[in-house]
């Protein structure tokens, strides 16, 4: 286990290195050059003198390795300078938006658990009965639903027609419910099916037969034994998806005007706010890599078979 953990932790070094080279190199991929973009964003007419000053400011005259190490030194402290458009510090903006996204993703995860676990268990217990068929249809619809369509429809029904929730805004639980649910739909659909299938698989295993022979009630077998074994593979997918959720909430955030990181990034792309985009890329990549690492370690720690095979 320890050997695996060390190996797994070491693997993130090349990944993080590539992330940094990628994020650093992007500025040099831009059409036109970085000085022009800088001046355009600052609204300064591009005279020769201004261009030179901009190159100086951006450190473009120095050798590339020197530029990289300096950039990296700053990036480690999440120092990406100021936003081109709002002139606020990128670090503060990105971290603030990240917190809001984490709230939304966390709430969404809670909804997923509350809904998909009972759904999965019920359809496994009544496999191939009506309830299971209904769940299957719901799962197909849920996993195929474009969130940018479902969101407006939910708003139309629950906010405008029924008036149950505020249309947009931020701060209270009532603001969280619709965006959280819109985000959760896809995952609820996939998890409830995955859980159902793995429950059914485990129901046929020997330990279930022994438990039955020992006279333990069917309910207890499912809840205490089968469910626990079936949840282990779910942890892996769950972790990976949480990483995706942290990165991939742009659509939901924009639909519900949630001040999160996805909305911040799309806004920055539209206004060509390069320092902000760079901040987003580095922060989200690091989070994604770390979430994956933690997930892998937890999966191995939870599963005795995997633990021994390593």
């Amino acid at each position, binding site marked *: 286990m320890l050997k695996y953990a060390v190996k797994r932790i070491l693997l993130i070094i090349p990944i993080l290195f590539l992330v940094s080279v990628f994020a650093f190199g*992007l500025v040099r991929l831009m059409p036109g050059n970085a000085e022009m973009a800088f001046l355009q964003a600052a609204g300064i007419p591009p005279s020769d003198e201004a261009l030179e000053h901009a190159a100086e400011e951006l450190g473009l005259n120095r050798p590339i390795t020197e530029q990289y190490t300096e950039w990296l030194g700053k990036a480690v402290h999440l120092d990406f300078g100021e936003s081109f458009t709002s002139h606020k510090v990128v670090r503060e903006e990105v971290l603030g938006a990240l917190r809001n996204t984490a709230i939304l993703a966390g709430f969404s995860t809670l909804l997923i658990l509350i809904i998909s676990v009972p759904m999965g268990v019920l359809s496994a217990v009544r496999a191939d009965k009506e309830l299971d068929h209904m769940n299957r249809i719901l799962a197909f*619809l849920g996993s195929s639903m*474009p969130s940018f369509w479902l969101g407006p429809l939910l708003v139309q029904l629950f906010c405008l027609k029924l008036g149950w929730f505020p249309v947009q805004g931020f701060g209270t639980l009532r603001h969280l419910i619709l965006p959280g649910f819109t985000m959760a739909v896809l995952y609820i659909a996939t998890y409830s099916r995955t859980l159902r299938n793995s429950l059914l698989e485990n129901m046929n295993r020997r330990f279930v037969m022994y438990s039955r022979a020992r006279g333990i009630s069917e309910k207890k077998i499912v809840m205490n034994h089968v469910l626990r074994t079936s949840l282990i593979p779910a942890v892996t997918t769950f972790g990976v998806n949480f990483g995706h959720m942290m990165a991939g909430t*742009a659509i939901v955030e924009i639909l519900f005007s949630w001040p999160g990181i996805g909305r911040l990034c*799309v806004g920055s*792309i539209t206004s060509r706010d390069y320092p902000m985009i760079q901040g987003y890329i580095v922060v*989200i990549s690091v989070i994604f890599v770390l979430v994956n690492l933690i997930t892998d370690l937890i999966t191995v720690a939870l599963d005795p078979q995997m633990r021994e095979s390593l």
Partner: protein
Amino acid sequence: MKMKIFLKRLFEKKTTCIFVALVLVIVLAGLLAGVLAPYNPLEQVLDDKLQMASSAHLMGTDHLGRDMFSRVLYAIRTTLGFAALCTCLAAMIGISLGILAGYIGGVLDMVIMRFCDILYAFPGLVLVMAIVGFIGVGIFNVVIGMLLTQWLWYARVSRNLTVAEKTRSYISAAKVNGASGLKIMTGHILPNIIPNMLAIFTVDFGHTILSISGYSFLGLGVQPPGAELGAMINEGRNYINSDPWLIFWPGIVVLIVVVSVNIIGDNMRDALDGTK
């Protein structure tokens, strides 16, 4: 031979036939948009804006007086076309690299698979955002960004299947008969892993439709006034209270196509389990 059994088992199910037919109808509608559309999808007739469905405008008109039916037809072509392009390229890159890695093995295998592992650690969305953010918005940049990670799945699965296939006796027989490595890879291994790849391709096509229209919804892909299903939903969502059909039609088309494709993909997986 494997393909024949696979197709037979696949089309034995009634649901496969129904949904394949449904997808074909929608694809045809998109392909024939130029013939079927009663109006130019970009033509604005401001006097006729936001009309309800009528015999003149089957799905009504949008906020600029453009005929919704014509726009939906053209949008099907755009969305499904780019999704197909993206998925086909990803499949071609992934399967070629996967078979090469699996068949040749050794250092090449290790390099390709390590490369996959590292790319796998990146969230695909961040790569697309990065490319679009620094090179510029537009559907081609979105496709390039998506391709960067989309091929991984094909490469991994085709590599593992190739490794398993390589040890079978018919491959040794082909070798003894003097078939070259290239011939074995394209003539023997590829046809045998195609059913598995087709199942992945189908599900991936559904995902890609959602992504392409999602990015266009965000304003990063197809730009207005171009007709694209996600972009149309974005344009129409401000009118949701008074004129909900502006987002209803493009959305329902996406949903129907993706549901159908997912059901076909699911049936493919069942059919594959049967051919083992």
